[in-house]
């Protein structure tokens, strides 16, 4: 059964919900705005949770099952919290031909995690992308949102070490 149109309140008093609410209002709470709204939630909070999905479901009057279906259908949406830093290795065709598998192996080896995973200390997430459209600069990787082209295993390892070491140093300092 569809939730009735009673006023629903955000799952928490986090002020960031106002951003999401604003977008939903702009779309007139139309069910077709679902994907746009999920983008906004993920952009604002970093990832999706069951609470945020049920809030969106109630606000747009869409069944929770459909919201969950959409959130898990599309690769772009994630229900896992991302690490402090992210490394995305492009595995599109051009990058693949130019050695993306080697890059990916190098990162996995240095960080000790597989693609789609986050290090235990929550410092680094390793992801892959189907194509960034930076094929002219293959192989490409994205470090914290910045695209870097013409990567080599050395350069990738250096960046990963930098991320891992900075956290180790911070831990040391805290001690």
């Amino acid at each position, binding site marked *: 059964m569809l939730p009735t149109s009673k006023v629903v309140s955000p799952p928490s008093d986090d002020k960031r919900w106002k951003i999401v609410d604003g977008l939903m209002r702009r779309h007139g709470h139309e*069910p077709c705005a679902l994907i746009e709204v999920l983008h906004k939630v993920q952009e604002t909070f970093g990832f999706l949770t069951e609470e945020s999905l049920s809030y969106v479901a109630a606000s747009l009057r869409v069944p929770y099952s459909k919201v969950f279906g*959409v959130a898990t259908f599309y690769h772009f949406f994630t229900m896992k919290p991302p690490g402090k830093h992210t490394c995305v290795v492009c595995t599109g*065709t*051009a990058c693949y*031909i130019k050695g993306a598998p080697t890059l990916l192996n190098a990162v996995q080896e240095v960080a000790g995690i597989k693609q789609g995973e986050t290090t235990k200390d929550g410092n680094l997430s390793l992801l892959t992308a189907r194509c960034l459209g*930076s094929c*002219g600069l293959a192989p490409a990787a994205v470090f914290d949102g910045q*695209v870097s*082209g013409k990567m080599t295993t050395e350069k990738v390892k250096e960046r990963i070490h930098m991320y891992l070491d900075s956290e180790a140093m911070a831990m040391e300092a805290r001690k």
Partner: protein
Amino acid sequence: MNQDDLANIAVQTKQNDSRYDHVIKVCVAAGCLSANSEQVKTQLESEVKQRGLEGCCKVKGVGCMGLCAAGPLVANEGNEKMFQSVTPADAAAIIDDVVDHKPAPSAIVMDSNLDFFKRQKKIVLENSGEIDPERIEDYIAADGYEALFHVITMLNPAEVIEQITKSGLRGRGGAGFPTGLKWITVAKASGNRKYVICNADEGDPGAFMDRSVLESDPHRVLEGMAIAGYAVGAEKGFIYCRAEYPLAVKRLRVAIREAENIGLLGLNIGDTHFDFKVEVRLGAGAFVCGEETALIASIEGGRGTPRPRPPFPAQQGLWGDPTLINNVETFANIPPIIRRGGEWFASIGTEKSKGTKVFALAGRVKNTGLIEVPMGVTLREIIFKLGGGIPDGRRFKAVQSGGPSGGCVPEQYLDIPVDYDSLASVGSIMGSGGMIVMDDTSCMVDVARFFMDFCMSESCGKCVPCRVGTTQMHNILDRITKGKAGPKDLELLQRLTGMVKAASLCGLGQTAPNPTLTTLRYFMDEYRAHIEEGRCPAGVCHPAKAEAEVSA
């Protein structure tokens, strides 16, 4: 806003620009930006300021200049002087060269007479690398929105469609359906509301033409959509763009806002009764959403799963209303066709494929980047003349066109002309324009496995032939690369390709076997080497080692 206002903006912008003796253009499209071109631009600007040249020298951010491999790229107004791999530290040398004619170090000087530039013919990309994509005035000064005004004030919808039909333009998304015919169908469809959708869900890995057009010249696409809206009777347009292209999305949003502000989109465009609004909708990383019915499902806010056709979107599309869906490059071709006439466009290209095509050239080729060539040039010319051949003294092996739906074309067909029908005759497709060159370091079985892995994970799961078939084909290909396959597997693989092709619901499944089929057809010896001799000729897979493990 009327035609005179538009002309005024064009004249004023040109006058403003003519005050400068020198214009230095810096590429600020995604490729060069990731190589630091923003800082290059800032440094050039502060250098101009320091030398007190603000009055005579202008630094301008422009769209893609094409040769992404050599980025960041900088050029002067007429592109007589071009600079490659520029760093912020080179700013002074570039200004010395452009303004004071003191030659810059040869390391950053690029030969602007390269075949890469000379052999292109630019229609879609005519403004890329020339205008500032975030300034509507720049587009208007380059005859922008003139075609839209002409259409809404001088032509009736049927006359517009007649020009498009005459031009012979075929859909640039890959399938090559005649654009004029599609427009007629939507125009004739009955319904109070109609929609225009621009498919900017460029999911093919290895393709970045649409991204580049949207980042370099977004207004061209908006103008094309508005003309289409007028022709088919739609008042609302959607651009469905990949979320992976944040810069393209940003520039589109800027462009829509600017166009609305001066009355080139929205209500009563050009003081006529024509209304047209455009909204951007974000994709969320699903390759299948490039398929038109899946794309519609996604805009409606659901999972991107295709549905059987007919009814075609032209009759029943978005929210059940007649909907025109064209690709970014198709819309980008519309304004020049209207400005210069359908006959002019039809005079370019081959008998059945008119105009030009933009290709994203990547992989094992010297000059990777974006090119636009007339239909009918040969693959050899693209790869060896424009592309500069294979680097590191390696040997060409195959070129892959059309992404996961296309095929691998071997050396013996390098002299076929590039058009929809010739590529199809060798088992590949034109596709949206990705062109990946492979040399002898690529194993064709591994490449087939790579594409099947892609299709397997991108299959939406709605129909069994695609969902199960791609997984089974992937398993067999995986076994072959690992040296665990027997001769029967090849036979099974061949049977599966036919089955998946024939029985799948949408284009994804129907074309998923293409990379496998073409590699089976042209590179059977590589398959045999893996299966019979436990050897990978390119040295990519390790079939023998795996076999040893199995037997041990």
